[in-house]
């Protein structure tokens, strides 16, 4: 049986100003759509039923990748993941991670703006409407209980964007626009560790572009998933680090994705490795420290204990990637 989309008005503004105006509609529920590879399935499952969809696809200025004098790479929100994967100017780790998202067909439609703003996911909500109705709508779905943690008053749905994790590790920033004006914020500040209000920006703000600073260190991304071909991350570990000539770590960012409602920095592990050479012992201790902020729940594929264990395994391997040839 075909699952039909619910009715909505589809608007295709040609300028950012017009799009911002349309999103500020006080009368109707409006959702912005990039490639639609997340919005469309969610609407088919009646997780969201906006009255208006504002498509960004006809706004020319949102397409494309450029490098400025400082060497920073700016990626327009409507750039597709396939374009990013094929790009030779995007930081290598980001281009590679774009190629790890979903499937080839989805990457041809999916945009970087949509990926960075991807809704949080959970076993109890990414289900058909009849399933959810039978089990009782959860907190994120308009009900009053989170079925993952019924005693908590917060939603535990998981941040599942691969590129968010990498962009935080690379120290990226995002430019946001609305009728109230424009602002540039560190991408880390875009995310909120709450499955329902997982973005800190207002609902009518448009992510215009992602700015990745020129990298002068090493970076890696490792993704845990059941099928290599097409799965959301059960865990993503992104690390960027710099070393001095003696091989001592002078800067590190270790970011965990797929484990909380926002990409999570493993601050203790970061602080531990700075000022040290990445010997096997240091890697092992850093990996142990990195598991501390991780509180995976049983709300995706594979169990929470397994995923917590995998944090240490993946962080150790990822640190090995950036450590390169070490003593």
């Amino acid at each position: 049986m075909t699952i039909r989309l619910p009715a909505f008005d589809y608007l295709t503004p040609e300028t950012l100003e017009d799009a911002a105006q349309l999103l500020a509609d006080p009368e109707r529920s409006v959702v912005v759509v990039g490639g639609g590879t997340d919005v469309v399935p969610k609407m088919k499952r009646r997780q969201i039923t906006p009255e208006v969809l504002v498509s960004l696809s006809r706004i020319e200025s949102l397409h494309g990748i450029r490098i400025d004098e400082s060497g920073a790479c700016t990626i327009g929100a409507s750039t597709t993941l396939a374009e990013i994967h094929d790009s030779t100017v995007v930081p290598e780790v980001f281009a590679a991670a774009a190629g790890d998202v979903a499937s080839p067909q989805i990457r041809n439609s999916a945009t970087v703006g949509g990926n960075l703003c991807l809704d949080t996911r959970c076993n109890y909500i990414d289900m058909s409407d009849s399933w959810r109705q039978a089990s009782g709508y959860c907190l994120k779905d308009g009900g009053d209980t989170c079925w993952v943690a019924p005693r908590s008053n917060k939603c535990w749905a998981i941040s599942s964007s691969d590129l968010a994790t990498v962009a935080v590790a690379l120290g990226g920033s995002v430019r946001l626009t609305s009728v109230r004006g424009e602002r540039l914020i560190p991408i880390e500040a875009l995310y909120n560790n709450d499955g329902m209000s997982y973005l800190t920006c207002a609902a009518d703000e448009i992510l215009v572009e992602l700015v990745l600073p020129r990298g002068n260190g090493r970076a890696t991304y490792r993704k845990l998933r059941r099928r290599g071909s097409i799965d959301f991350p059960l865990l993503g570990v992104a690390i960027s680090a710099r070393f001095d000539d003696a091989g001592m770590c002078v800067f590190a960012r270790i970011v965990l994705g797929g484990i909380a409602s926002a990409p999570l920095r493993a601050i203790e592990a970061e602080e531990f490795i700075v000022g040290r050479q990445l010997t096997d012992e240091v890697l092992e201790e850093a990996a142990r420290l990195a598991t501390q902020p991780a509180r995976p729940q049983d709300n995706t594929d594979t169990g929470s204990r397994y995923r917590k264990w995998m944090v240490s395994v993946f962080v150790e391997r990822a640190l090995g990637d950036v450590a390169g040839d070490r003593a």
Partner: protein
Amino acid sequence: MADHILAIDVNGDRHRVLVTDQRTLLEVLREDLGLTGTKHGCDVGECGACTVLVDDKPVLSCLVIARQVDGSSVQTVEGLAHDGKPDLLQEAFAELGAAQCGYCTPGMLISARSLLDDNPDPTTEEVQAGLAGNLCRCTGYIKIFDAVRLAAARDRGL
């Protein structure tokens, strides 16, 4: 919710179709244009049965809002054969038994055609990566990968 006239080119033929905003490309192809070669599987982006080319790139027609591709050109499995002669991929799939129930086959053929247009001599790993978004519940994939490589070799005149 209003009706719009969608202008799309499908397999080289120009069409004008009256659509509502919530119509997907898959619905337009199968229900408005009667092109039922493109299959309807999961409806939510997971299986690849609905794969078509939009402006030469494979996408999932179940996830595409039809108005999003207004003005584009679309190719479906019906457009693979030329002058009644099947595409080399179709011949290779038939010869090697790469289709069992056949439900995934149109999507496989479209993804494979796009892969070979970009890369005429793919390794098995490259074929696997190119078909990563197409699920098959029957064949175990081996014959599909073999058929794509056979068609590629014939395409190169081997």
